[in-house]
């Protein structure tokens, strides 16, 4: 009796390893982790012969790992620099997947709807606008009673794609910001407190009267935080939504290598502080079988995966961009 049971188990093990699943490994950005894990779950139903293993170790790690070829694909919230691309052993492709917005959240008595523009946000984060009733903020918010209160500036302390998008936007709208601070995943902040992660920033903002901070749209939405409308380059105040981010991608100038920035784009419906996230794959795949499966998955993500983005509050790529990306996916050789 025992023997039969043992044989059964053994047979199961052997047959299990005979139809061995292929595992495709990826690593990188944390921001898109929820949507990627959803995609991998759903894709397991489409093709059970392949399993995806994704480690959200951060964009820096994702770029390092794909350059070192320890993973089959990388992921990053910011496009790679020319220098990093050159250090890769082969040609790396950027495959944009979804986008997210960075929202301005605040803590004021009664939390009135506040409107801001790029110059004002830059002034606040440079420390030149110090009070909520500053003339520059008041000019954008007629009818809102702004208190005579110090602005407590809160920013991310950990390196993050969110900070990259935020500082990229400020560098575009403010020459002062560009020359004094610049764009990166962490910067030398002229003022303010550092909170770790979205939860650190929002915790700080919620508890500190007069605070302002920036967090991901998803985080603000799920935690029902007050968010500011921001003036876009067409002079319209737009609130951060999935639609206004997709609109920003539709009007942004997107080059053929897909290393684009969608901050401060044209178009009256565009929310100006937004950014995409990318998968990084080699144009020439080393492992033909894996390459084929990876390409199949990427095609599926453009066709079906994008439709799931909205449920998780990510902005899907606009249709026209999806087609361009698909064309590039078809050029992957294996």
């Amino acid at each position, binding site marked *: 009796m025992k023997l039969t049971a043992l044989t059964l188990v053994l047979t199961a093990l052997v047959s299990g390893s005979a139809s061995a699943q292929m595992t495709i490994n990826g690593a990188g950005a944390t921001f898109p982790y929820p949507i990627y894990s959803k995609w991998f779950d759903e894709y397991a139903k489409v093709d059970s012969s392949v399993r995806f293993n994704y480690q959200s170790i951060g964009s820096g790690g994702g770029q390092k790992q794909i350059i070192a070829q320890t993973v089959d694909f990388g992921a990053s919230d910011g496009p790679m*620099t020319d220098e990093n691309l050159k250090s890769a052993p082969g040609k790396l492709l950027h495959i944009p997947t979804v986008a997210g917005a960075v929202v301005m959240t605040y803590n004021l008595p009664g939390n009135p709807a506040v409107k801001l523009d790029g110059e004002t946000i830059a002034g606040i984060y440079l420390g030149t606008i110090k009070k909520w009733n500053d003339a520059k903020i008041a000019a954008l918010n007629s009818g809102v009673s702004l208190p005579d209160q110090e602005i407590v500036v809160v920013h991310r302390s950990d390196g993050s794609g969110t900070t990259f998008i935020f500082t990229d936007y400020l560098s575009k709208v403010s020459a002062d910001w560009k020359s004094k601070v610049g764009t990166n995943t962490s910067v030398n902040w002229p003022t303010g407190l550092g909170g770790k992660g979205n939860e650190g920033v929002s915790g700080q903002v919620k508890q500190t009267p007069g605070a302002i901070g920036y967090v991901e749209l998803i985080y603000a939405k799920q935690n029902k935080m007050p968010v500011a409308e921001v003036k876009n380059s067409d002079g319209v105040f737009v609130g951060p939504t999935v639609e206004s981010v997709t609109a920003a991608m539709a009007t942004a100038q997107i080059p053929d290598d897909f290393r684009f920035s969608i901050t401060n784009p044209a178009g009256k419906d565009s929310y100006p502080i937004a950014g995409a996230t990318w998968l990084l794959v080699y144009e020439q795949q080393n492992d033909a079988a894996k390459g084929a499966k990876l390409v199949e998955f990427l095609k599926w993500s453009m066709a079906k995966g994008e439709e799931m983005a909205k449920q998780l509050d990510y902005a899907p790529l606009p249709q026209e961009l999806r087609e361009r990306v698909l064309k590039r996916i078809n050029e992957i050789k294996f």
Partner: protein
Amino acid sequence: MATAAVPTSVLQLRPASRFGDRAFEWLTFAMSLGVVVLVILVGWQLARGSHLAITKFGFHFLATSTWDPVAEQYGALPFIYGTVVSSLLALIIAVPLSIATAIYLTELAPLWIRQPLASGIEMLAAIPSVILGLWGIFVMIPWLRAHAFPALKAALGWTPFFTGPIYGVSMLAGGIIIAIMILPIITSVAREIMRSVPNLQREAAYALGATKWEVTRIAVLSYAKNGLFGAAILGLGRALGETMAVTMVIGNTPQIKASLFAPGYTLASVIANEFTEATTDMYLQALFEIGLVLFGITILANLLAQLLLKTMTRKMTTRVAQ
């Protein structure tokens, strides 16, 4: 028959058991050597990982205050300052509390309450760092900002240490969180040391007509002084490297301010914060060098402590000899 067989077999086994002894000696030697080798390897790896940054910035890395990943200018001074100050604050808060607790637990408390209380304190060590950090953000910081800090400012605002705007997140908050984290270790080591004080000491003091406080002071504390100092150093070692909870309450601003209400930054925090998203080589190298500096400070603190301990013991023994 059987009883007689035992000694002969032991005799026969002698050479074999000697081999066993030697093997055991070698094994333990190899293991203790392994620990030392590990420390050296860690240091070497950190130095190797940061050699570009070391050659580029040289001594400036330790002496300048700008941390700018955009311009690739890195200076570690505010982080070093933050690590040292927050750890010292933690010691100032934790050591008296721990020693008082240990005195109560070994000298004063009724017997039945000692073990449960001691276990309760050790339980504090089991709370994960990140949980303490969250408690710090959502419970401690609002309380500090609304009650404790304004009171401190009112009472001690005339000193430079308690001035400026109160955000809650601050160097002092970081020090308090670390103090909570190192309390259990200092307390339990201090307790063990006081328990090892021979009862003869206490009895002698009592015989001289000393009160409870005098017995504790003369017989226990002065006898256990070196051990208690060691307990504090153990706490300092842990305080220097505390990361997660500190990161969540210290404000993460690389600056050097006299006021303890101002936010600060520590070496461990900047590594935890920026390592994952550091994309350029020099950036990563600078973070490695931060690790090397932290490693160096920890070793230096331990060496200094040992030196101090040695001079303390020497003084004591010479005094006894006289």
